């Protein structure tokens, strides 16, 4: 009951006209960002963060805006998967498998509506899951000391490297790059300057927003210059939009099963939405009796991954809010937002700033309803936005990123670093090195070191203290399993390729 009254307070925050307006704006922007190929949830949220600051919004308002963008982008990703056969973002990859064949068979409208409903079911139930589970986990997290937190950070890096990427060594290198960069600047414990090489700009470290926008947005420009922005014309016809009641009823169990799978995958630190949509699609294919239509336009193959990835998006907020450990690239960006707003995520957030937490949760529920309205009757409007050609879109994104970062710091040096990160991101992407661990490293590096050092102060330098509690041992075991396990499952976990024309 306590939860219910807190939630009511949350609605009181979320239903003010300003917040409601921001949620709607966020949903629209998010759907556009998700739908545009080459502009996924992570870089979409990243380039908008500096702009949210320049609006002078308070913490709750900026969080509402950004999480609506986040949920919106998760909805929007499906539009380009279904119509262009290009996933708007990574989690939407699985939707291309059945969505595009369905669209080619003349049922593009049905596929869009069905996937919109599936997204709604997944996201809504996951938000309820978040309401139930997050306070429990927050209470548990009070038992965590420095040793447990250190092990938890290790767990986040290893599941991210093990499950979410193909080559563990490369993911480890990426994590080291991020952690190494986070060491630059003044050491929190001793106020000694590290790795600045006499450059005054580096004294307060490398701003994670600079790295995020560089690695995500600027890199994208270089990728498009290389590929010359291969034309992304819509090859399928979109007729009148009707609601395919039969398909929705056919898929109801598929949606519910996928929601559960996606939600659990989302909670795992480091696994995130891509894993959620992948697992729910595979599970659905294995469960249904007649799966001969899968890959050829089965409605269940559209509903399952969409419900799964939106449920994962909700689940991924749980570790981010309660423990301060993000479960995916985008939640890492949201964590960056929290840190810039001077809000420390973690168990204390639920007691110190209940207005922020419950206002956020209430606006997620509102955002979901808004998104359903936007994505079912108004889907045609978003389809039109897909026609923005890359040679307008990418320069535009770059200019917005530059002005955003510039308005935040006013420093030419930061922009130079951002270009540097962009160039680095291009080569890393070519070499198949994941960039999300770099972001996670920059975000978590200092806290990871602080916790390690605090643990060592408590134990007076005894390293076995790191394994002194069952919670910590559990995290270490899960970390090793999460890093090593996928090596043996590589054959099973192989990512499928989108259908070819």
């Amino acid at each position: 009951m306590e939860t219910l009254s807190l939630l009511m307070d949350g609605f009181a925050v979320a239903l003010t006209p300003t917040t409601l307006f921001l949620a709607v704006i966020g949903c629209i922007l998010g759907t556009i960002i998700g739908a545009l190929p080459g502009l996924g949830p992570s870089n979409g949220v990243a380039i908008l963060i500096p702009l949210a600051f320049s609006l002078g919004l308070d913490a709750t308002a900026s969080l509402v805006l950004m999480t609506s963008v986040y949920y919106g982008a998760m909805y929007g990703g499906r539009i380009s998967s279904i119509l262009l056969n290009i996933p708007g973002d990574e989690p939407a990859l699985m939707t291309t498998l059945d969505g595009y064949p369905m669209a080619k068979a003349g049922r593009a409208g049905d596929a869009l509506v069905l996937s919109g409903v599936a997204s709604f079911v997944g996201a809504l139930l996951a938000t309820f899951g978040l309401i139930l589970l997050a306070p429990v986990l927050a209470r548990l997290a009070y038992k965590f000391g420095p040793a447990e937190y250190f092990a938890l950070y290790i767990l986040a890096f290893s599941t991210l490297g093990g499950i979410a990427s193909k080559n563990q060594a490369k993911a480890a290198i990426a994590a080291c790059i991020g952690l190494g960069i986070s060491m630059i600047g003044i050491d929190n414990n001793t106020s000694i300057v590290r790795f600045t090489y006499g450059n005054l700009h580096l004294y307060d470290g490398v701003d994670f927003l600079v790295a995020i926008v560089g690695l995500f947005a600027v890199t994208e420009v270089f990728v498009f210059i290389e590929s010359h922005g291969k034309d992304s014309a819509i090859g399928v016809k979109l007729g009148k939009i009707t609601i395919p009641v039969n398909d929705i009823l056919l898929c109801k169990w598929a949606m519910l099963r996928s929601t559960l799978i996606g939600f659990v995958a989302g909670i795992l630190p480091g696994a995130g939405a891509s894993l959620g949509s992948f697992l729910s699609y595979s599970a659905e294919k294995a469960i249904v009796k007649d799966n001969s239509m899968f890959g050829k336009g089965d409605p269940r193959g559209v509903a399952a991954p969409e419900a799964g990835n939106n449920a994962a998006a909700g689940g991924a907020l749980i570790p981010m809010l309660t423990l301060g450990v993000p479960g995916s690239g985008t939640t890492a960006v949201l964590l960056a937002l929290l840190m810039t707003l001077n809000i420390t995520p973690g168990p204390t957030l639920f007691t110190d700033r209940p207005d922020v937490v419950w206002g956020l949760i209430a606006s997620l529920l509102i955002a979901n309803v808004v998104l359903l309205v936007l994505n079912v009757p108004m889907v045609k409007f978003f389809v039109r936005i897909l026609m923005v050609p890359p040679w307008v879109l990418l320069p535009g994104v770059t200019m917005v990123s530059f002005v955003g970062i510039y308005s935040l710091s006013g420093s030419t040096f930061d922009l130079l670093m951002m270009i540097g990160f962009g160039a680095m991101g291009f080569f890393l992407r070519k070499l198949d090195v994941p960039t999300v661990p770099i972001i996670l490293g920059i975000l978590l590096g200092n806290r990871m070191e602080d916790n390690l050092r605090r643990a060592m102060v408590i134990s007076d330098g005894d390293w076995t203290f790191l394994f002194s509690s069952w919670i910590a041992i559990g995290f270490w075991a899960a970390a090793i399993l999460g890093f090593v396990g996928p090596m043996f499952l590589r054959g099973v976990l192989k990512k499928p390729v989108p259908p070819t024309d």
Partner: protein
Amino acid sequence: MSDRIFGLVILIVALGYIFSATLIQTSFLSDPVGSKTFPYIIGGCAIVAALVVMWKPETDPYWPPAITFVRLGLAVIVLVGYDYTLKPLGFIIPTTLASGLLSYQISPRRLPAVLTGVGLSVGLFAVFKFALGLGLYAFPKAWF
């Protein structure tokens, strides 16, 4: 081959990083771990991972022809130039040039590139200045 070179670069950077870490001043007020240990651990992990990548490289990615790298280099120069001119020259002129040039590099047609440059600079200026209230100057201050 690409992976071997990448591993080697990371190896050298990691060794350099560890060397820099040895030069960190030690404080008289230090904890058992100190300011150097964590950087050593990071460097060590990077070395191990780099050796693994060199030992078991993956197949080479597709590297575009040299001309593409020239284009990418030009794009970097355009962006750096944009960075340095944004403050002294105001928003409109550098943005028109930079977005037009980037547009041309993605799709080499002159008229659309010019239109993109002008459209983006004017449109974004309006959004930034009037909707978001950023303190941008349209033109160099000395002009008026």
